[in-house]
Each structure stands twice: as C-alpha cells, then as structure tokens.
C-alpha cells in the first residue's frame, strides 16, 4: 500500500472486520471486569452489591494462587522446550528422503487431530495407569515397580501429555520452514568447509528461527490456558500439585459458584498472559522483523 489514498481505502475496507472483532473481545472482557467488582455468588440470592477490589484480595490471598502461577509457568516452559527441540529434531528426520515419506508425515501429524479430552483419557487409562497402563506393563516386564505417573509426578505427566499433542504442530511448521531453505545455501556452506553440525547451527537453525518464534508464540497463547487435560486426569491434584491458573479460576467460580471471584481470577489471568506476551515479543519478536 503505497499511496495515502490506498492506505485510507485499505483501512476503510478492513474496518467492519476490525470493529466486529473488537466488539467480540470487548463485550465479554467488559462484563468480566464488571462482574469482578461485584459480590456475585450463585448460592446467595439477592442483589449483587459493588465491593471494589474485594474479590481480587481473596484471589491473591488464596493459598493456591502462587502454586498455580508457578505450575502455569512450568507447564508452559516445559511443553515449549519439549516441542521446539523435539520438533526441530523430528523435522530434520522427516526431511530426509525415505521410504513411505507421505504416510509417515501423516502419522506424525495425527496426534494434533485428537481432542485434548480424548488424548488425556487415552494417556491416563492406557499408558500411565499404574495397573493396566502400558508403562506399568513395561516396568513390570523389566522387573521394576510400576510408576504411578499421575499421582507421583502429576505436573510432569500433564506436561508430557500436552507436549505430545503439540509436537506435531511444531514439527509441521518447522518442517515446512526447513524445506523452504535454499539448497544452494547448504551447498555453499558445504564448499566453505562446514560439516553437518556446523551447517545445522550456522545455516539451518538461523533459518528456522522465525518459524520457531511463530511456534513459541502460538503455543504460549494456548498453553497458558490448558484445562481439559488437567480436568480429565488429575483434577488439579493431588492437593494443588497440578493446578494452573485456568483450573484455579474454574475451581473457584464453578465449584464454589462464585462468579465475582471467578471473574477476578479471569482478569488476573488475562493480565498475566499479557505480561508473558510482552516479554515474549521483546525477547523473540525481533526475529519476525523483515
């Protein structure tokens, strides 16, 4: 869009979509903010008086708040680490010419099509179950005591499950990025004396930086609000060992029927997500420039 007129026309053209999206976002957000200042419990009928920041005080002083915050960050960072590193390795593998390439690629993408609830149930009952699970069977076959994943290492188990779901996404994006790398660049590097490892670190990895940034940004947005996997497997427990912020908001507002408190938690989660997003943009957003 080079000229002033075309820019103005462009703005005009996209304004309906922007206005609709803005309303779509601002109405629920506004109502949530409004509810968060009310004493609004479904179990206590009557009017809903304005109580200022009382709900926020309750939320922050909840003994589960800090552990939940910590769990959220651990979950996000853990899954990001597994999916980006694993995704790069898998993409490198899938980029090699091999027999049955098409089918292998479809198989790799498959986990992404499985609903979070279903995949969590599959993991819980078929893999991690200490009695019937595959892992328990492997452990017993090898003569070890079965490990009860979901009660002994609940957060780690959930990280595994979520990482399994997101690995295909990361792999797919990184694979397409890898395939867009000009083969002459690799050949030039080869002639310049770079071995396979140097070629990976000096040529491929910088080329993948932008795709990896996209993977990290998109995943972070979704990982901050992981919920189904926790609900299905551990219910946030044992204790609060696998409660993240989303789950905390759920347990406070829905399990205790406190709309006001839940809204306050929601707003806190929104603010935290924005802080994380700003950090991310600062740290890696420059990869997206030009």
């Amino acid at each position, binding site marked *: 869009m080079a000229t002033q007129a075309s820019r103005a026309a462009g703005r005009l053209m996209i304004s309906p979509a922007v206005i609709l999206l803005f309303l779509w976002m601002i109405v629920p957000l506004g109502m949530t903010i409004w509810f968060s200042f009310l004493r609004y419990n479904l179990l206590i009928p009557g009017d809903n008086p304005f109580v200022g920041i009382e709900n926020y005080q309750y939320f922050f002083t909840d003994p589960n708040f800090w552990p939940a915050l910590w769990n959220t960050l651990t979950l996000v960072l853990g899954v990001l680490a597994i999916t980006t590193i694993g995704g790069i390795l898998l993409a490198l593998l899938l980029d090699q010419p091999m027999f049955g390439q098409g089918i292998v690629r479809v198989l790799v993408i498959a986990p992404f099509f499985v609903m979070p609830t279903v995949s969590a149930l599959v993991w819980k009952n078929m893999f991690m179950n200490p009695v019937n699970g595959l892992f328990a069977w492997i452990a017993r076959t090898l003569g070890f005591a079965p490990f009860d994943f979901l009660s002994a290492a609940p957060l780690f188990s959930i990280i595994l499950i979520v990482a399994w779901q997101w690995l295909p996404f990361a792999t797919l994006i990184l694979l397409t990025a890898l395939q867009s790398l000009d083969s*002459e660049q690799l*050949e*030039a590097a080869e002639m310049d004396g770079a071995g396979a490892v140097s070629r990976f670190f000096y040529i491929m990895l910088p080329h993948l930086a932008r795709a990896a940034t996209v993977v990290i940004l998109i995943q972070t947005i979704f990982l901050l609000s992981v919920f189904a996997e926790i609900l299905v497997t551990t219910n946030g427990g044992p204790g609060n060992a696998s409660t993240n912020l989303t789950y905390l908001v759920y347990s406070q507002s829905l399990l205790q029927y406190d709309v006001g408190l839940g809204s306050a938690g929601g707003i806190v989660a929104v603010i935290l997500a924005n802080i994380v997003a700003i950090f991310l943009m600062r740290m890696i957003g420059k990869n997206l420039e030009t």
Partner: protein
Amino acid sequence: MGQIELKGVTKQFGDVEVIPPLDLQINEGEFVVFVGPSGCGKSTLLRLIAGLEDTSGGKIFIDGKDATDLRPAQRRLAMVFQSYALYPHMSVRKNIAFPLKMAKLSQAEIDKKVEGAAKVLNLSSYLDRRPGQLSGGQRQRVAIGRAIVREPAAFLFDEPLSNLDAALRVNMRLEISELHNSLKTTMIYVTHDQVEAMTMADQIVVLQAGRIEQVGSPLDLYRHPRNRFVAGFIGSPKMNFIGGAEAAKHSAHEIGVRPEHIKAGQSGEWQGRVTVSEHLGSDTYLHVQTDHGLINVRADGEIGLHHGDTVWLTPDPACIHKFDANGMTI
C-alpha cells in the same frame, strides 16, 4: 596449483545419462568457459568437479591427486552460485568470514583477510549490512569475496552474472577478468552468454548433450569450428548455413558463412530482398530472403537499406566453412 583433469567421467540421474564418458584437461591458471545450450549439462559438470554431485563413473584429478571421493571442502575449490547463495542472516563481514571461521583461523587473521577481500571488491563500506540490503551487483561481489578469501586452487562460477542487468554485467565481467589477471588462479566459468565466453575465456569448452564438441581458444573456435554445431553456436549473429547446389559448387554437403563475412552491394553472387533491417548505429543487421533461404548479413551502420529493397550478397571466399553430410568440417 589448480590443475584439474577429468578422465572418463560420467553422470547418470536414474536411467538418464546426462554426461557420457568425458575427458577434459584444465591447466593451471587458465580461464575456462563452459558454453552450450540449456540443459546440456554445464551445471552438472561443474557440480561434479565441485564434489556436490557424485560421479557415476570415471575419475577427477585435482593437482594430480585423485579427488573423486573427496568431500567438496577437501577439494580446495570455491564456487560462486547463480543465486549467490549468501547466508541471509549474516552480515557481509560474517558471510565473507564464514569459510575462514570453518577453517578455524584466528580472529585477527580472519579480520585481515576479510578487510583485504573487501578492499579488492569495493565492499568496505557495506561490511556490516545484511545481504538483503545490497544490490544485485554488490551481492555478487560478496559471493566472490567469500570465494577468494579461501585462496582456493580454482574458482567455479555457475552463470554468476545472469541475474544482473546489461550494464552491470559488462562491469562485473571486466572485474572478474581483472581478478583472474591479478590472482592467476584457475577459473571455470559457466555461461550461455556469447560475449562473456568470447571475451573472458582462455579456453572455451563447447558442450552439447553432455558431450564435448570442441575445446579451444575463442578465436580458434571462431575461425576453425570442428563441426556444424560449434560453427552455429559460436558467433553472434549466428552463421548462415546453405545447402544444395550452392554447397555442391564448393564440393561440400553444406556451407556456412558468418554474417560479418558477407558483403551487401549493388552487384554480387546472390540476389535477395531485404525483409528486416535492424539499425544498431554501428552496424546494420540485414535479413535477406534469397533463393538459398534467409540469410543474415552484418553490414555497415550507414548502409541505408530498408524493407523491400533488393540487394546482392557476396560471401568472402576465404571465410566459407564447408561441412560434410555428418556435419563435420571438411
């Protein structure tokens, strides 16, 4: 250093034989140009020498040593790609320094060599830019810079100038020739530009379908083409070929005369009518319809002939090439 020898080298892609057994000797310090029609295997041959493709048969010797199974980096050759193949995320300085860094030179040495190369190639003021912020000619120079810092035994160029505009191409052509004169390193250069081949080469290798048709100095090929293909390929505008009775007069199956060896005038051997005349200022290219077919003539700039005019053409008898039925020169 920089003598390359191919002995019976072949290359197949699947069932397709792109290079039939081929022998070639490139002497130290020579500027050798590979020319040939598109798809004849010029790039493939270059990549075989570079080690980017495995040979299907035969041996490649570099400086007398068998290099057939050496990896590209061990052959001490540097290549300049048509697409430049610069590393987009590195500055010009880092691009040029990359081969030195891979060779594990000290930082001081790297800096010295990069500065040196940048000076030779007029890149000093661009060292901290990214390739994306350079013009085509500058990028080309960076690619050459990356090649010369390694002080290779030979340079390989694959159509390095084909992405540049005409004026820049002339400039870069001169720069590469100068570079060759000052470095005296063997250079192998692929092109399908006539002018580049004629002006830069010590030796031209004319290829067709992977076979070497002729090897020789530019003027040698121009004056004494070994066969009809080379005669038609070298020289611009193309040589005129005339068969039938006119050829029989010279006891040949076909004769060839270059457009610059035909005189156009008011009287002569062949009568014809001008169909198109292209006035270039210095020259006029006449397309003349005669009884022997369409004949191109390169005439004086001031000749003043136009569409529809009648002319007589006279070939220079000393410059008539004769070919037998197999297309070989008699």
